[in-house]
C-alpha cells in the first residue's frame, strides 16, 4: 500500500451521489411505490405531472376487511401533497394510493396493517411510504404493537423498503411504526438546499433526515416529517430504477455511503489548497 492511486480509486472517484441520482435512467421507472395515506386527487397531480403513470389504488376502511376501489379522489389533501413529492423526486414511478383514512378521517392500526400487506402481496410494491404515525401513548397494547412490527419485518424479509415519518414535534415521544427502525427507515425532517440532499442522522428511532418541505398545497413551507419521508422514498425509487433488485439493506447502505461521500466532498471543498 504505497498510496499510489489504483484503478479502483479512479472508479470510486467517478462514482458520486450526483452521478447516481442524476443518471437519466434514475426516474423511478419500473419501481412500484405505495403510499399509505389519505388518498390522492389524481386530476391535480395529472395536471402538474403530465408524464406520470396513471395512479392506482384502493380505499381501506376500519370496519371492512376488503378494500374499496380507488376512484381518483382524496380523503384528505395530505395524501395528494405526499404523492406530489414522490412524483417530483421520481416522476416515473408507478404510484399506488392506499387510502386508509377514508370518510372518518382517522385510521386504526389494523387498517394500516391491511394496507401494508395489500401493498406487498397485491401491488408487489418495492417501496412503501408511511407519512403517518401513531404516538406511543395511543398504541399501548403489546399485542397490537407486535402485530404491526411483524408486518414491517415481513416487508423487510420480502425486500420491500418501508419509509416511515418520525414523530414531528416531540423528540422524547416515539411514534409507530417509525419506532420499529431498523427493519424500516425512519425519517426525520431537515432543511436542505437541494431536495435530493439528505443526512444520515442516527439516533434512537431515527436514521435519516430528508428535506421537510413540500411543493403542492397550503402547508408546503411548514417543515414536517410527512414531507421529509416521501423525499427519501423518492430518492430510493430513483436508485431502484437503476438496480431494481437491490435489497433494503443495500439501499440503506447506499444512502449512508451517499451521505458520507457528500460530506467528504464538502469538507474537501472547504479545505484550503
Amino acid at each position, binding site marked *: 500500500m504505497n498510496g499510489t492511486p489504483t484503478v479502483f480509486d479512479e472508479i470510486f472517484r467517478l462514482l458520486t451521489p450526483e452521478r447516481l441520482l442524476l443518471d437519466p435512467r434514475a426516474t423511478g421507472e419500473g419501481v412500484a411505490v405505495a403510499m399509505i395515506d*389519505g388518498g390522492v386527487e389524481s386530476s391535480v397531480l395529472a395536471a402538474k405531472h403530465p408524464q406520470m403513470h396513471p395512479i392506482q389504488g384502493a380505499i381501506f376502511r376500519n370496519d371492512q376487511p376488503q378494500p374499496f376501489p380507488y376512484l381518483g*379522489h382524496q380523503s384528505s*389533501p395530505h395524501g395528494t*401533497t405526499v404523492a406530489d413529492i414522490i412524483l417530483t423526486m421520481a416522476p416515473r414511478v408507478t404510484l399506488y394510493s392506499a387510502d386508509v383514512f377514508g370518510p372518518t378521517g382517522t385510521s*386504526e392500526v389494523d387498517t394500516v396493517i391491511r394496507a401494508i400487506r395489500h401493498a406487498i402481496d397485491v401491488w408487489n410494491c418495492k417501496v412503501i411510504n408511511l407519512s403517518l404515525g401513531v404516538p406511543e401513548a395511543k398504541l399501548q397494547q403489546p399485542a397490537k404493537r407486535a402485530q404491526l412490527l411483524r408486518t414491517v419485518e415481513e416487508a423487510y424479509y420480502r425486500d420491500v423498503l418501508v419509509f416511515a415519518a418520525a414523530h414531528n414535534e416531540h423528540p422524547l415521544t416515539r411514534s409507530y411504526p417509525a419506532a420499529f427502525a431498523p427493519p424500516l427507515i425512519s425519517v426525520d425532517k431537515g432543511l436542505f438546499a437541494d431536495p435530493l440532499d439528505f443526512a444520515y442522522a442516527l439516533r434512537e428511532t431515527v436514521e435519516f433526515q430528508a428535506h421537510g418541505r413540500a411543493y*403542492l*398545497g397550503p*402547508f408546503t413551507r411548514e417543515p*414536517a416529517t410527512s414531507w421529509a419521508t416521501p423525499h427519501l422514498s423518492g430518492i430510493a425509487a430513483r436508485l431502484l430504477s437503476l438496480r431494481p433488485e437491490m435489497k433494503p439493506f443495500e439501499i440503506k447502505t447506499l444512502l449512508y455511503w451517499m451521505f458520507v461521500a457528500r460530506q467528504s466532498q464538502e469538507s474537501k471543498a472547504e479545505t484550503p489548497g
Partner: protein
Amino acid sequence: MAETVLIVDDEEPVRRTFRDWLAQAGWGVNVVAIADAEAALKHAQDNPVDLAILDWNLGMGSDGLQLLEDLVEFHPDIVAIMVTGFAHQATPLDALRMGVRDYLDKNQELTRETFLAAVRKQLDRIAPAKHQREFTRGLLQFRESVGRILPLVQSTAALNDPVPLPEAVRHLFRFLVRLTGAADGAMVGRHITEDGTERFLAFSPDGKAIPTLAIPFGRSLAATVLSMNEPCLLMGEDLATLGPVDLQPFETNHEMLLAAPVVVADGTHVVIELFDKPGGFTAEDRRHLTGTTEFCTEILRNALAERQTQRLLINAVESALKASETAVGIANPAGLPDEVMDQLKTDLNRTANRVVDGETSLELAEAIRELAVRHGSSSVRHCLRLIGNVRDMLDELSGEWNG
C-alpha cells in the same frame, strides 16, 4: 310484600279462633277478620286481599259464595277457602270458577292443624303467582313511564347534537383569540354519525354557527390540518398555492392563518383556526395554540364520553322496553334479556377509544358482580390486586410502558 288473609264469618268466636291460629303460626301474614259481607266488600274495595276464608252461610240471607263473586270484582286473582257445615251441597264447578280452592267442613274435624294446613297450601300457591303478577304490573308501569319519558329525552337538543361543543371549549376559543391577538377565528367541527352521515360545522369566536360550509371535508383546509397533527401556519403566498385544497368562504380574504387540530375520537374532529394577527403569529402563539388544543381535546373527549354513556343508557332502556313486550316469557327477572345484552355489546363496541370488545367488557362486569355477590367486597379488592400484578408483569415483560 306479606299476603293478606280476609276472614269473614258472622260468629265472633270463629273469627277469633281463626285469627289466633294464624297469629300463632307465625307466617307473618296480615289477617283481617270481618263479620258481614257488606263490611268485607267495603274493606276489599280499598285494601289488598290475597286469600279469603269465607263462611258459607253468613246469615241475614247472604252467603259466602255470593260474597266471593263480589270480591272478585275488586280482586280478580283472589283465592278462597269456604267454611261450611254442608259441603256436600256446594256446587264445586261454579265455586272453583270463582276462586274457591278448598272447603273446611264445620261438621267434620275442623282443627287447628287441618285449618292451618289448608291455609298454608293456598298461601304456597299464592306467593309465586302474586310475585309474577307484581312483576308484570311493575314492568307495565315501567314500560308506561319509560314510554312517556324516552321521546322527551331523545328530543332533547343537547343529546341530538352530534358535535356537542361544550361551553367551556367556546370560552377557551374566545380566550385564545384574545390571547394571541388574532383578528378573527373559526372553530371547525366534523362528525360522522353511525349511519355514515357527515355533519360539518363551523363556529365563530362568539359561538355562533357559521351557516354553510361550501367545501367538502376531503378538500378542506381542516382536513389538511388534521393530517399534520400539529399547529400549522399559512401565510401570504401559501394561500396562492392551494393545490388539492379549497378554502371555505370564511377562510378567504385573510393574509395569514394559524390552525391546529383537535382529534376527539374516530369520526369526530375539530380544527381551531386563527386569522390575521398584526405583525404575524409568533412561536409563542403556536405554543399557546398547542396548549389550548390539548386542553380542548380533553374537554371534548370527556364530553363525548359522557354523551356516549347517555346514549348507552338510552339504547339499553330502549332495548329493555322492547324486550319487556314479551315480559311474560321472561323466566328469570334478575337476568337481562338477550336483546338488551346485544344492544349493550354493540354500543360498547362503538365506544370511542375502546380497548376491549363489548362482549369481554360485559363478561368482566358480570364476573365482578357475581364475585361481589358471592364473596363480598374483599374478594373484589383481591381481584383488583391480581389484575394490578398481571398488568405490572406484562409492562415489565414488554418493557414499553412509559406511564
